[in-house]
């Protein structure tokens, strides 16, 4: 019996050592990545708000995430007396577990995917990441506090409603490929020579809005709305548990951006991947890196202390090394086979960053929705629009295949479809305004029941 178990384990390891290793690396590195995303967010926020942001820990606050992590780790772990201990313990773990697990399905470049070529690809990512909702709901309930409970009620209602819209948007995107396999989706975009965001712009828009709501980001950050519910479901959490929630939130951001990138923005493909005329775009990544390195070098003499100067030099060196790595597949014929992997990774991360940047930009710019407005937007605007969009995209595809259209010529049928969807959207909006004008002071009462 013992031997059989050992045998099974060995078999398992022999088959799956590579994904396991990748998984370990992701679990180990992701907190760091998230930490730096938070730093970038704070820096961006500072930039937009006419201030400097973190500057004290390391040059330009570059070591701030590490300091924050240490602080969170050594903080006292408080569990409220009347909390449900088991659930309180379980909830953040669930949240983070679901978020990390869903990363397994993502493909960062054609070469790097943990769970390779799963048949249900994108559904796996979406479905597993949706399980994170349990962490939020149970965490809020277990804290035994009214603020937490309201936060988790809000969040479950919000997630359930916006998941529908996001799912429908994904369906209209998937109609274009006819497969769930992530690799096949990107390859379809390569073969068509066009990103699906052009063919299904309305679906992309719906997914954009719904993904912001799903990750509880402003302007849909009601479950943790600071000014209303203190911190929503996280109110009673502190120290490491709290940071787990934080980790989950930012990981979810990465996940939704990756899904959008894969399905709508051409995944790891360079812009105009099949057009030789645009081959010069291959030099953009190394040049970008060299530019960053140059900027760092330029700023080095202005750093106040020697340590900081060295640090800046190190960053510049790192960027230069990256530039070399990115340059190699383009310049050296020997390294040509590495092109897809390296440049694919670059473009994928670039697009994901752009998507996340948009999230952050929104957060600093616009106020927060009220809960009834959020529900109305979800149920009365996004969901009908997404259903209509699925229909029109389907019809457009049938018409397109009837005329045997491919690639850019598909725009001939999908653009009218998008316009129809937009007109419907405007009609829905107009109708909504008419109906809400009469009851401006009486916001929908039963939004929890949704």
């Amino acid at each position: 019996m013992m031997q059989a178990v050992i045998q099974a384990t060995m078999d398992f390891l022999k088959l799956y050592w590579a994904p396991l290793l990748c998984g370990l690396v992701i679990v180990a590195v992701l907190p760091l990545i998230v930490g730096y995303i938070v730093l970038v967010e704070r820096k961006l926020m500072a930039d937009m708000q006419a201030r400097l942001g973190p500057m004290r820990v390391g040059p330009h606050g570059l070591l701030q995430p590490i300091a924050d992590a240490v602080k969170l780790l050594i903080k006292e772990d408080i569990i409220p007396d009347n909390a449900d201990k088991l659930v309180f313990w379980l909830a953040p773990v669930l949240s983070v577990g679901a978020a990390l697990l869903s990363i397994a399905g993502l493909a960062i470049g054609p070469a790097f995917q943990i769970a390779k070529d799963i048949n249900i690809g994108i559904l796996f990512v979406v479905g597993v990441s949706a399980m994170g909702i349990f962490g939020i709901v149970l965490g809020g309930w277990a804290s035994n506090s009214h603020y937490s409970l309201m936060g988790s009620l809000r969040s479950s209602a919000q997630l359930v409603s916006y998941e529908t819209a996001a799912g429908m948007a994904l369906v209209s995107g998937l109609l274009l490929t006819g497969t769930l396999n992530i690799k096949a989706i990107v390859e379809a975009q390569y073969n068509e020579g066009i990103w699906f965001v052009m063919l299904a712009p309305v679906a992309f828009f719906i997914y954009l809005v719904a993904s912001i709501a799903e990750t509880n980001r402003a302007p849909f950050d009601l479950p943790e709305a600071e000014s209303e519910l203190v911190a929503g479901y996280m109110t009673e959490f502190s120290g490491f548990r709290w940071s787990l929630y934080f980790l989950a939130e930012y990981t979810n951001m990465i996940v939704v951006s990756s899904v959008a990138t894969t399905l709508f923005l051409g995944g790891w493909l360079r812009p105009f991947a099949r057009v030789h005329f645009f081959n010069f775009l291959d030099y953009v990544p190394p040049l970008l890196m060299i530019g960053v390195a140059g900027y760092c070098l330029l700023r080095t003499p202005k750093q106040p202390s020697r340590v900081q100067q060295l640090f800046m030099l190190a960053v510049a060196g790192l960027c230069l090394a990256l530039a070399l790595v990115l340059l190699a597949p383009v310049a050296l014929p020997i390294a040509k086979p590495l092109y897809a992997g390296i440049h694919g990774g670059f473009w994928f991360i670039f697009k994901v960053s752009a998507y996340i940047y948009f999230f952050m930009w929104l957060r600093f710019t616009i106020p927060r929705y009220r809960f009834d407005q959020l529900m109305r937007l979800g149920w009365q605007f996004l969901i009908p629009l997404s259903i209509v969009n699925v229909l029109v995209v389907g019809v457009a595809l049938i018409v397109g295949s009837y005329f045997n259209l491919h690639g850019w010529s598909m725009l001939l049928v999908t653009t009218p479809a998008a316009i129809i969807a937009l007109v419907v959207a405007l009609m829905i909006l107009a109708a909504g305004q008419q109906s809400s004008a009469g009851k401006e002071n009486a916001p929908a009462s039963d939004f929890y029941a949704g």
Partner: protein
Amino acid sequence: MLDKVLFYIFAGLAIASGALMVTRRNAVHSAIFLVTALLATAGIFLQLRAEFLFIVQIILYVGGIMVLFIFVIMLVNLDVALQQIQFARQKWVALIVALALSAQFGLMLWSSEKIPGQGIPVLAAPPASELPANSEAVAQSLFGNYLLAFEIASVLLLVAMIGAVVMAKKEK
């Protein structure tokens, strides 16, 4: 071998959490254990190479229905509910029903393995490599042979949706 280990892990998990679900006093704990049982079942589906069903189970059952359950449990406050007696005085009925059911199932399983050609067919399942891509196959079957059933199911869901809205609506 891996198959077997996975099955035993998932099956054990499913039965254990099922039992815990039925015995916990606290309804939220029950719901959590039901979620575990459902996830374990999803694992069984995966072990049976039903990938599509696996993810549907997770999205719909775990991510949809169970969230609804927990939501409702939170709405109908637990503090009150916990003070009430959670178990009906039907232990004996339950025992008898359970025994009868297990006897029946046991007999069936036992007899079917005894007598070849009757009950459960002693077939060898096709190897996993020969199966068609799962979601495509399910889709073809769903929108081919079972299109009418699919439509009826959608009507059922619509009816349920309307019913739920009417039911949960506040009387003004």
